[in-house]
């Protein structure tokens, strides 16, 4: 066991891990953040996506020890004080959520797009979400969700 410290959803956490432990398992089993989903454990489905130092990665193939000293955001870190992020609201409004199992990961990839680009075009969305497998929606509602989120964020900005 080795102790690692990292910034998780805005807070410093310290946790004991084995070198072989993946970030996914540590998040779910040691830190009880079960919003990060385990869909394949082979870096293929994207359900376990988290944001590591502002980049989405599949937490199933990231050694937990690798994030020592780094910053990790999970789906639980997107909403603040129980209030949904505009992006999460947009996913609901767009009907982009069906079974919901891929949803947290997709939202994190979408979040990473919007953090880097205020108004992504369709091709950017397509590229950046192409690491997520969704069996329910046919993906098309994801575009709507991001468009709605862009609008919400712009409104939020003008209000401020």
């Amino acid at each position, binding site marked *: 066991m080795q102790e690692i410290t990292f910034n998780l959803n805005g807070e410093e956490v310290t946790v004991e891990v084995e*070198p072989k432990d993946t970030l996914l398992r540590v998040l779910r089993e040691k830190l009880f953040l079960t919003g990060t989903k385990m869909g394949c454990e082979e870096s293929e489905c994207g359900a376990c996506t988290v944001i590591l130092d502002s*980049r989405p990665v599949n937490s199933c193939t990231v050694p937990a020890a690798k994030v020592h000293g780094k910053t990790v955001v999970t789906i639980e870190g997107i909403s603040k004080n129980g209030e949904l992020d505009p992006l999460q609201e947009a996913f609901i409004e767009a009907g982009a959520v069906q079974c919901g199992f891929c949803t947290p990961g997709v939202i994190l990839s979408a979040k990473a797009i919007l953090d880097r680009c205020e108004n992504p075009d369709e091709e950017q969305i397509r590229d950046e979400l192409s*690491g997520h497998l969704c069996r329910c929606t046919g993906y098309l509602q994801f575009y709507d969700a991001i468009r709605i989120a862009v609008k919400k964020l712009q409104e939020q900005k003008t209000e401020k």
Partner: protein
Amino acid sequence: MRIEKYLYPTSAEEAVRMLEDYQGEAMIMAGGTDLVLWIKEGKREPSALVDIDGIKELHSVLIQENEIILGAGVTHAEVAENRELKKRVKCLTDGCRSVGSPQIRNIATVGGNIVSAQPAADSTVNFVALGAECEIVSAEGRRRVPVEQLFLGVGKSALNPGRELMTKIYIPLPACPYATSFQRLAPRNSLALPIVNVAAYLAEKDGRIAEARIVASPVAVTPFRLRQAEQYLTGKQVSEKGLAAAAGQLAHDEANPRDSLLRGSGEYRKVLVQDLVTKAVEEILGKLLRGGAEHAGNNV
């Protein structure tokens, strides 16, 4: 076997010392997208993992007049998004953009992809086509090796990840006009290994093709140089008609992919190699003729 320790060196030399401490039983941990799976499947059983994230020189991108120096720990996403690289080595940025998925590209490193030695890898064929060399550090010091020579077989690299660390990749840039192309066909548009990919590089001097490197994969156990097509093109006038088709035909004849249940028959994949080589050569010749070559000093 239990992995005893996860280590965080801050220099290449320290990393190599750590590897030596474990007498070849430890392994370098780069992005982890392959290694974590191999450990889980029991295909690798290291006694310690040596993480490269803290080694500064592995993460730099240096673009010079006659050479690009990429840190081996640069991620595929970093290469794909780099506009200056795109101007100079478009095949490489296109290839890196095709690897896995955004989440994989965001953490998987170009050095790691070479060392994993998977013949289908979309970034490595380009390093071979570009004539890249890499710097390897071991207890004996630093040495430079052509990337092409690192591939020994499927998953077999000449670099020993228990003793050695790749630090840099050197991509030579010729003084003359040149252009590159990367082509691939895959079962789907993301998250897919290619059915066939082709990386091509042609350099021009005085209206003639001065240098040609065309690489296809996975048509052999290592990235495969299409030498007959290369030889055929070398010395030809750039403006000569029918070059691309002829190169494609030669590529078809010399490539010998095996039958694969998942990728298709060898016979069919030869046709794909032919088509991709034709497309790649056509694209490059078009660029050279239009003066749209990729060049360090020629920021088109």
